[in-house]
């Protein structure tokens, strides 16, 4: 009776699958498997970091490579986050080399490293594409500074430090187009807007501008700029720092239409760490200290305000 036997076989496999799923839900989850993976084999054999202040002493910090602080960011690293002279043609880095410490994020990274007790020479920069920063599992960096905005949902997947820079969204357009004359947020709603996938800029368009035309979403801000040039969209929404870069470097006839008002929580850039990383409280401590002694504000004045000028806020 092949037919009934086949039915039997299918039924049995279903039972098997259901049993497997049931088994899966009752499988005890190992306690934070990801954090265990961050300790490199050659890490010093110190006791696990506890809640005592001593845990953030340099000798107790369990970094990827012992004695070094590995910091990630995407390549090209660009201003005003990373600045300085153009790197040599042979360099890994395209527009700016983080190793020279110029630019808001490079300066912040070295300031954090300093507070953690790492000398400049102990800081190692690695290229981490923006998309890889958020992937679950072990990371190739101790912390990553890549203009990642803090969000509660993101904080479930990776550790996000306290904010080191308060950011606003901004709109970039072409001088010749009607968008250049817009002064209100509601004035943007009838226009075609575009941005990069996965950015808070997209969330801002969808939640706050709510344009009548579905926003165009691109794989990169570069593609959004290409679409702007092709007149497929009227404006690109990006954070202010990126907007400066678009206006100054990517477009010859670009204009920042304005800053977008903050809605709800202040947007801020956070350093990304592995989920449950013992380093996170120490990085937060360092950022708090940098805020208290005014170092962060100095960095902002130097790398944003004095170099990029002011932009009006849209009503």
């Amino acid at each position, binding site marked *: 009776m*092949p037919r009934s*036997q*086949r039915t*039997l*076989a299918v039924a*049995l*496999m279903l039972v*098997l*699958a259901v049993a*497997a799923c049931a*088994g*899966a839900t009752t*499988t005890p*989850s*190992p306690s934070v*498997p*990801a954090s265990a993976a961050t300790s490199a084999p050659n890490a010093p054999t110190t006791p696990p970091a506890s809640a005592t202040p001593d845990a953030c002493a340099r000798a107790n910090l369990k970094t990827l490579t012992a004695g070094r602080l590995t910091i990630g960011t995407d390549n090209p690293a660009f201003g005003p986050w990373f600045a300085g002279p153009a790197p040599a043609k042979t360099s890994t880095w395209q527009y700016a080399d983080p190793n020279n410490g110029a630019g808001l994020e490079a300066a912040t990274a070295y300031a954090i490293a300093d507070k953690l007790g790492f000398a400049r020479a102990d800081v190692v920069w690695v290229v981490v594409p923006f998309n890889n920063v*958020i992937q*679950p*599992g072990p990371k190739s960096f101790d912390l990553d500074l890549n203009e990642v905005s803090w969000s509660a*949902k*993101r904080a*479930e*997947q*990776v550790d996000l430090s306290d904010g080191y820079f308060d950011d606003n969204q901004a709109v970039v357009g072409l001088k010749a187009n009607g968008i250049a004359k817009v002064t209100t947020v509601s004035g943007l709603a009838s226009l075609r807007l*575009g941005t990069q*996938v*996965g*950015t808070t800029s*997209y*969330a801002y368009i969808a939640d706050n501008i709510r344009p009548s035309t*579905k926003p*165009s*979403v*691109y*794989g990169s801000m570069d*593609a*959004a700029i*290409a*679409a702007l*040039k*092709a*007149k*497929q*969209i009227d404006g690109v929404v990006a954070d202010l720092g990126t907007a400066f870069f678009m206006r100054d470097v990517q477009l010859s006839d670009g204009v920042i239409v304005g800053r977008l008002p903050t809605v709800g929580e202040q947007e801020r850039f956070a350093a990304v760490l592995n989920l449950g990383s013992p380093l996170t409280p120490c990085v937060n401590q360092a950022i708090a200290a940098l805020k208290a002694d005014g170092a962060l504000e100095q960095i902002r004045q130097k790398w944003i305000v004095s170099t990029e000028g002011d932009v009006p806020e849209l009503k």
Partner: protein
Amino acid sequence: MTGPADPGGVTGLRRFRPAGVRDRNGGHRSTLIALGSTVVVFGLLLAVVLNSPGWPLIQKSFLNATYLADSWPRQLEAIGTNVQLFLMAEVIILPAALLIAVLRSLPGPAFFPVRLLAVLYTDFFRGVPGVLVIFVLGFGMPLLGLPGVPIDAFFWGVVSLVLIYSAYVSEVYRAGIESVHPSQEAAARSLGLSRAQALRHVVLPQAVRRVIPPLLNDFIGLQKDTALVSFIGVAEVFRQAQIDEFASFNFTPYLATAALFLLLTVPLARLTDWLTARSRQRQLGGFAR
């Protein structure tokens, strides 16, 4: 086939066994063996996966019901764009590729430039990565600023897919045309049919029937490659999944996308299998096995 047991031992689960034909002796046992081995193999696979140290992490990141429910309606809406893209493209591709294949098969020295163009076209669009074609046409053509040239990204997405896939599909047609024995055309010509008539009524019907499975291959490839059009900002399902993934840092939305693509392609594959089997049976006059 009615007598001895099949030594292969899998007859119990064999797919194409005609109704009413079964093994008298081996059927029962081989079914049990097939069943047993399936249970063991799949059981082992599941055990390995479920007991791997990262399984809870995988479950949380890739198999999360909350995120699935959240993303599903938006994806269902977005896949409509993909369906539009591949249906519009395929409607143009099928005849355009056939035309290119026929042009390439034209005999005689006078048609050399035509054949050369057809060869250059297929070489170029098969050889260049599809994403590049989409980028260049999608962002480049509107930059020309020529009156009458559309700037719409969706339009250029369809055009790119047509150009890329017509190159592939024309080669499939050409293989079909060349598989028809020359004696077929010779016979048709001897009956007084012109070259065009022979092509139309004798060669092409046989050629096209033979290449239906590879044509379906390319159609499925086209369906999946509609995701590439997201590069120029068209709101299709893969981009929607990405938007949802980035909003939550959870990868479950991609699973929903995979399921949607399977829902599109698997029934189509089964339908084509069935059509092919039926046409073969008809050709062989009911003696098909």
